[in-house]
């Protein structure tokens, strides 16, 4: 009996954590195959944690408000990029540049977040696909601004940024002068592993903010709205407004996250940096065991570690197995789309399963009643 319930518990745990367990297995197989040294691997992972975690944390707030995985975080990324382009054109480097870029991104993010929230309020229940399409639409506007309006309308002076034709921004904007300035300040080396203490401190502050935020009135309202919009509305909570605020917060945080991400990378791929960022962040969060309606800070950290370990080792491991490094490259793109698909499917099946549970209970009650009548 005891064994049985223990077995059931294990099975339940495996069912609830299929995706993370799958990735642990993949990593466990690929790490030895890749032949990387432990210190290299840890170094890489720590770097990528500093680079990505802030961006992924911004996804938590819309999930709390019941708006699912916010593919619209791309909008915040665009805001961060525009701010960084401007700051680097003004030749403000180092920490002041990073701080100024963050401040500049706020109004753009607020505007975009408000717009996105408004539209998502019209598309309740279809937030994910709608935000995905909005990000494509906004990409068009972003290109219009960066390609045609920067120069004639928004002054761009520096020739290393401007295209030779006189307007528009080059394919790559170098951030060499602010490269890893956050990461290097207060950095500590432990056994050959560089730990970007300041970046982690910023991430820590955001984590504390999120935990604190859950305990505020607004956070409580968001959780209520996320679980049942109608009940929340009946209780007098302004549902639409709350959802818009959650979108704005997420977009602003995504803008900050993008600035941190790009200062680590050291350059902006003007037309493509943001395009995959939403997908990769969401994939990482899901790998960490989050679902469409439930995600925690723990999921973020676990997800980043697992997903990026896979990212680092897959090409080498692929090359070791097949002799072709392209297979690993293929595998990591495949894995990120795959994991999003799997978790969406699992979310649906879980909902169905809960539904058929009621039927099973009814049938069970009936059986018991019959047994009672017969006995």
């Amino acid at each position, binding site marked *: 009996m005891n064994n049985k319930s223990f077995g059931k518990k294990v099975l339940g745990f495996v069912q609830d954590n299929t995706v993370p367990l799958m990735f642990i297995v993949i990593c466990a197989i690929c790490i030895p195959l890749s032949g990387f040294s432990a210190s290299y691997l840890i170094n890489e992972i720590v770097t990528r944690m500093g680079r990505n975690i802030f961006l992924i944390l911004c996804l938590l707030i819309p999930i709390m408000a019941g708006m699912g995985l916010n593919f619209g975080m791309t909008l915040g990324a665009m805001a961060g990029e525009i701010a960084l382009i401007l700051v680097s054109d003004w030749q403000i480097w180092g920490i002041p540049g990073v701080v100024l870029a963050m401040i500049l991104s706020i109004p753009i993010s607020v505007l975009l977040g408000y717009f996105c929230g408004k539209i998502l309020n019209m598309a309740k229940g279809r937030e994910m696909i709608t935000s995905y399409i909005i990000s494509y639409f906004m990409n068009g506007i972003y290109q219009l601004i960066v390609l045609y309006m920067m120069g004639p309308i928004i002054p761009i002076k520096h020739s290393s940024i401007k295209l030779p034709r006189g307007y528009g921004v080059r394919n790559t904007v170098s951030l060499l002068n602010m490269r890893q300035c956050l990461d290097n300040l207060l950095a500590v080396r432990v056994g050959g592993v560089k730990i970007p203490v300041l970046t982690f401190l910023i991430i820590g502050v955001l984590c504390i903010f999120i935990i604190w935020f859950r305990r505020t009135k607004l956070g409580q309202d968001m959780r209520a709205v996320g679980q*049942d919009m109608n*009940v929340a509305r009946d209780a007098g909570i302004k549902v639409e407004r709350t959802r818009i605020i959650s979108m704005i917060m997420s977009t602003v945080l995504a803008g900050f996250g993008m600035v941190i991400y790009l200062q680590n990378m050291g350059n902006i791929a003007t037309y493509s940096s943001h395009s995959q960022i939403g997908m990769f962040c969401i994939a990482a969060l899901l790998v960490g065991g989050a679902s469409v309606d439930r995600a925690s800070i723990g999921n973020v950290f676990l997800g980043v570690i697992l997903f990026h370990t896979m990212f680092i080792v897959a090409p080498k491991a692929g090359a070791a197995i097949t002799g072709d490094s392209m297979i690993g490259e293929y595998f990591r793109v495949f894995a990120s789309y795959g994991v999003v698909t799997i978790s969406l499917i699992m979310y649906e099946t879980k909902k169905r399963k809960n539904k058929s549970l009621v039927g099973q209970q009814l049938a069970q009650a009936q059986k018991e009643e019959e047994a009672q009548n017969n006995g």
Partner: protein
Amino acid sequence: MLSDNTPLLEMRSIKKDFFGNQVLTDINLTLAEGEVLGLCGENGAGKSTLMKILFGMDVIRETGGYEGEILLNGKPVRFATPFDALAAGIGMVHQEFSLIPGFTATENILLNREPKKRNVISEVFGERLDTLDYNEMTGRAEAAIDKMGFKIDKGMRINEMPVGHKQFTEIARELSKDNLKLLILDEPTAVLTEKEADALLSSIRSMSEKGIAVIFITHRLHEILSVCDKVVVMRDGYVVSDVPAAETSVSEISKWMVGRSVENTGSIDIRDTSKSKTMMSIRNLWVDMPGETVRNVTLDIKEGEILGIGGLAGQGKLGIPNGIMGLYEAGGAVELDGKPIPLNSPRKCLDASLAFVSEDRRGVGLLLDETLEWNVAFPAMQVQNKFLKRYLGGLVKWRDEKAIREVTDRYIDELAIKCTGSKQKARELSGGNQQKICLAKAFALEPKFLFVSEPTRGIDIGAKELVLQALKKFNRESGVTVVMISSELEELRQICDRIAIVSGGRIAGIRPASDPSEEFGLLMVSMVK
């Protein structure tokens, strides 16, 4: 202190119509402080509408408001929204739960009224960033639960609670409002076990002792007698009686509830089918239809009869056809003419020559943007390959437009469907005529067995008569077995041979349609859960 002759609540000649359809006529009610009023009546009697008016629900304003006046403590009030009513001290516990599933009882009791603490950030960004005061919340929730007199675990999450405790959480939420003077309970015992219902009754008594007036709506009449000071019975939008609870009895109330003032005739030509063979046998059926759960139903339907299924709303009568036809998850065994019918598979039912006219005619019943011809012929075409011309040995099938038009025209004629012609779009017809199209569609299938669910819901009296007569004619002339589900007992009595009453998800009894209404009334409330 108020003088004794000013009642807490007074409703004076309240009238309400929905688009010309009078649902409340001249309602007068008074309620004193601490008094418990039991409100009963059949579905559609107007109880809910009256409470919606009192509570200022949006639907009343959207449908043109109401006439008459409401006095609270002698002052006229007119609530534009439920929030106004709440502010005036009126609380309401609705039939459907209004709780956040992932929140604890405490969080739900104080939803959007949480005590807060200011902090540095909220000084800058506004009070929505105040943190919640969890200690204070626990204290207030505890006080409300104490006031209710039934212990629930304040830290338990709603989705882990038994259903009865959810109901008590809702009541505690209303009690946690300090200014509460009047509490409306809309069928609160429907989901409770016997023990919990008893606890609720005693908590109603203790509320009344504390000076809170209660309006208690229920179908369990003995509860009304045990807890209420007075009983108000409504029927067809009128108050038919308003008496002290001590002076009446269950049988008297149920007579008031169902008795019609108009001609009270049952079916004239009842067919005795007890010797006919069994057309459909249902054994131990359960159906998981939200709000219409069916439990352990066993029923035999005889060939050629019209069987009525009646009962109060939410008791499971709609679940029976929807479950058998495979629209909701079901279990048990169903046989048609000796052959088993697989459940949870609509197509197999249709293949077995079963037809179903759904109560949801706009959602399930009709292709709203298609012509009447299409609507009538589509199922027959899909299921039985009717109205198709075959070429090349059946490889190519073309619609037989002529046959389709003929059959549509025939039904338009027979059922007196008001339309511009067989090419009109179904959306453009009135409700009654849409219902007739649904029937025509089922008739065109030429089924052996027909389920008709709420065929007269939302249509006017003239159309009602035609629909009922068409059904009866279809049954008598082509010998098709018909099962009609309706919340209106009188219309069942008018055309059915036998009537089964569903109560609490089970068959409470089957009687010939000629039995007096009171009998059915008692059955309806017999097993209400």
